[in-house]
């Protein structure tokens, strides 16, 4: 059997043209996907059964026991952290928010160590964006700033940006000017028309210089900014102004370098100002396939897109205080549920050490470093492969992930529903 137009559950591109060959309930071959996507869809060794740590060792248990233990940990905690959510579907995220409300926890997503600064920048300035198809059909100038799609989003250029042909871009790559701004040569920069190498940590200054040049106030720009000669920056500003439709894509090179959300704030301002001269849009290159989704679901459920504290029965949002790493750094959380993300691999060392000191519940299809510090491990179906549901592409486009094969594993949504039931049962017991 071949499943056509399946949606890839690897990165924020959500490529929806994947053909998957299924034989006897197993995925045999994946066509059209990039290597990263294929390997995600083909899968690898799974956690076999739920486990609970006893005497230092993880021991296999039944699902119900694991659900009950997870519920107990969450209820007993003063301020549990429910973290992750990027690699699962919105249906699970909705249940997770309900669970955070029920147990009075803090819910945060992987955005906190990824495009969280972008979200804060957007809170300051708004987001002048577009869908990816708009870039495909119209963009003649594309800037990749602090991102390397050739390696992180391999089909981005083929489907949406540099190399694709559209209605007003019939020549594809030949009709486009591609600019890369980064601190080093990358695979993306190798095929660019113009590469601007800046000194690490100078994004803010370079963007400021471009804003001055675009606004016709270049007289005040020093001879060199961020290690880039003024003449080169002036050339870049002219390229931006010459665009008929320009698009800026940015990545972690700018969100997590010096300046963080201020860099994004500045980049958003640059794009807003470019719109007084021509047409320009800007977009973060979201990493995990549905990290966009948790931001959307949280916003319509709680009013805030990340780092939401439900411990006072009403949503409270204060990144720096309620973000996962801040909570851990200050030992301000006493239990954690890590779902659809690998905190132990992506958090700073001090945060991981803090995590290792509190009870951790892991919900994931795969064993990973977080498993090593978990007290309860609940294996799940792979969302977007074994379970259907909604995901939001990097441009905010909602798509429905298909189920490609059956599984005996429960979905994230089912697991969370069971934990909620256990929580309710325990709460009733406490009331008695």
């Amino acid at each position, binding site marked *: 059997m071949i499943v056509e*137009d399946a949606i890839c559950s690897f990165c924020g591109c959500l490529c929806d043209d994947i053909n998957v060959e299924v034989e006897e309930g197993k995925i045999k071959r994946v066509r059209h996907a990039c290597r990263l996507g294929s390997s995600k869809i083909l899968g690898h060794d799974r956690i076999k059964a739920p486990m609970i740590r006893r005497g230092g060792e993880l021991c296999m248990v039944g699902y119900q026991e694991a659900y009950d233990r997870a519920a107990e940990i969450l209820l007993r905690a003063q301020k549990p952290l429910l973290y992750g959510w990027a690699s699962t579907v919105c249906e699970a995220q909705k249940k997770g928010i309900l669970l955070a409300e029920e147990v009075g926890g803090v819910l945060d997503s992987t955005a906190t160590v990824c495009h969280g600064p972008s979200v804060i920048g957007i809170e300051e300035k708004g987001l002048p*964006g577009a869908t990816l*198809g708009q870039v*495909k059909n119209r963009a003649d100038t594309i800037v990749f700033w602090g991102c390397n799609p050739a390696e992180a989003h391999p089909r981005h250029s083929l489907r949406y940006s540099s190399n694709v042909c559209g209605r*007003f871009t019939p020549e594809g790559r030949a009709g486009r000017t591609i600019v890369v701004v980064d601190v080093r040569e990358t695979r993306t920069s190798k095929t660019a028309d113009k590469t601007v190498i800046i000194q690490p940590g100078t994004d803010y200054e370079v963007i400021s210089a471009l804003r001055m040049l675009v606004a016709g106030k270049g007289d005040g720009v020093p001879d060199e900014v961020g290690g880039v000669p003024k003449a080169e920056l002036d050339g870049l500003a002219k390229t931006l102004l010459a665009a008929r*439709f320009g698009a800026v894509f940015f990545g972690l090179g700018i969100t997590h370098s010096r300046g963080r959300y201020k860099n994004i704030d500045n980049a958003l301002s640059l794009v807003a100002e470019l719109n007084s001269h021509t047409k320009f849009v800007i977009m973060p290159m979201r990493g995990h396939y549905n990290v966009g989704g948790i931001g959307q679901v949280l916003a319509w459920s709680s009013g805030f897109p990340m780092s939401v504290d439900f411990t006072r029965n009403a949503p409270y949002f204060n990144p720096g205080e309620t973000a996962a790493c801040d909570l851990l750094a200050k030992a301000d959380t006493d239990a954690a549920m890590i779902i659809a993300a690998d905190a132990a691999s992506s958090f700073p060392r001090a945060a991981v050490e803090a995590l290792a000191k509190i009870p951790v519940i892991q919900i994931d299809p795969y064993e990973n470093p977080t498993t090593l510090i978990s007290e309860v491990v609940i294996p799940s179906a792979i969302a977007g492969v074994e379970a259907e549901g909604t995901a939001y592409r990097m441009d905010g*486009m909602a798509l429905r992930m298909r189920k490609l094969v059956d599984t005996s594993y429960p979905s994230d949504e089912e697991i969370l529903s069971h934990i909620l039931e256990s929580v309710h049962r325990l709460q009733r017991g406490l009331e008695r």
Partner: protein
Amino acid sequence: MIIKGGIVYDPANGIFGEEMDLCVDEGRMAEDGKGEVIDARGLLVMPGGVDAHSHIAGTKVNTGRIMRPDDARLGIEPRSGVCRPCTGYTVPNCYAIGYRYARMGYTTAFEAATPIIEARHTHEELEEIPILDKGALTLFGNNWEVMECVRDKDIGKLAAYVAWGLRSARGYGVKIVNPGGGEAWGFGSNVKGPNDPVPNFDVTGAEIICGLAQANEMLRLPHSIHLHFNNLGKPGNYTTALETLELLKDIKPSRMRQVVHVAHMQFSAYGGTSWRDFESKAPVIADYFNSHNHATMDLGQLLFGSATTMTADAPLEYGNARLTHNKWSNHDIELEESSGVVPMVYFRKMLVNAVQWAIGLELALLTRDPWKVLMTTDHPNGSPFINYPEVITLLMSKPKRDAEMATLHEQLPKRTSLGGIERELDWTEIAIMTRAAPARILGLVDKGHFGPGADADISIYNLRPEEIDPSRDHALVKKALAAAKYTIKSGIVVSQEGQILAAPQGRTFWVDAAVPQADMDRLMVDLQEKFEKYYSVRLSNYAVQDAYVPHPKVIRAGIQMEVA
């Protein structure tokens, strides 16, 4: 359920403040009822409120939330009882939308603008809104396929596309926003009016509007086209409004309703040549509505204080952002639309804002037939919907209007006729403008009235219409309207004295229109090419799946096929 002794306003059935009992059986109005008795002796009873134009779900609403944590903090209510936690004032979270409408006695609200390709998101949010019945209008005014069908004068294919688009979006009706301007914005420009050609498409906004109106009537859709004019929000734009309305006066409606519903008329009733000599042209617009029967409007009333402007009119939002130096979100949508979101504050002492405030009220008071005017704030563009009691009391009380005007910019009386208007609306007119008319204009046959079989959506207020004088006692009226004594949705008491007692799941209305297979076949050839070459998603992943509309109410419409 029996509701005893209320003073009932059911203008659709010719009942104008009569003391009578109402009966409910299985969620519908009935001749007899049993069980629970609600004592409404002497109290004001109306059908549940219906909002025909409100931005309550979808990408731009959520963009407003994401860019405005400041707004979320304005409306925090902790979770309690059956209620999930609430946040937000101009951009409330989904739960707040359901509870706050219900507290005011509203039971139905329609999202005003959704692109087909992003309708999945809209339905995710609609389904998360408790209590209300709802639907979403679908955007067609800047759509490539629409413009090409119009250019080729192929109304059969256009009708097929509208039917296909509504089905794909699970949408309720045809929304047109700044036709042609959204496409032009794709390269950063706009159209100057309905007769300005759309770049690259060889059509005008006027042709798009007329083509879609014809297709709408060919398909016998329950609602008419729902139109946001070109040049909205600009001084002198009343001429654009009149010119556009004239285009549509000879189109025959396929049902007993208008041919065009004008969205938020207030934003298109502007005189002057610039903000300097800006003035109200509401009297001219009202005259037009008084002398023509093909059009209806909603007010888009503006109130002072915080708002969030959000619209598919993206160039307008860019203008707002440049004007106010406020933060700006923009979202262009491939092959279909553009859109934008900008926070806004309206000031009493700013003459332009004061004139805008007056225009909405003038429109409602100078248009003689209340069936042509809906009370809205174009939530959250003019003001959030929770301020409806303020608008209603302004319409019912000349003294309140005078007192308010005295606090506004001193030049205001020279720019508006409002001060000279004596009319004060009565409860019948309010019941029409907030219940009966929006239901009729949308084509919702079971809403907005108490006839047998109608949905048992009922609001009962702590007001004695036979004793109270809304002109004098406007403060009491406002308080009572803000928290109904009872709100009943499909026969269930959902709110009592401002407290939410139950949060049942409402339904989502959408329209499934039949078209001849030959037209659909011709259409699919076009669409396959568009998906192959231009869209960034596959045709097979495009339409909203049934999973997103688990509580549907499907309205059938379409072209009647002749039996061979």
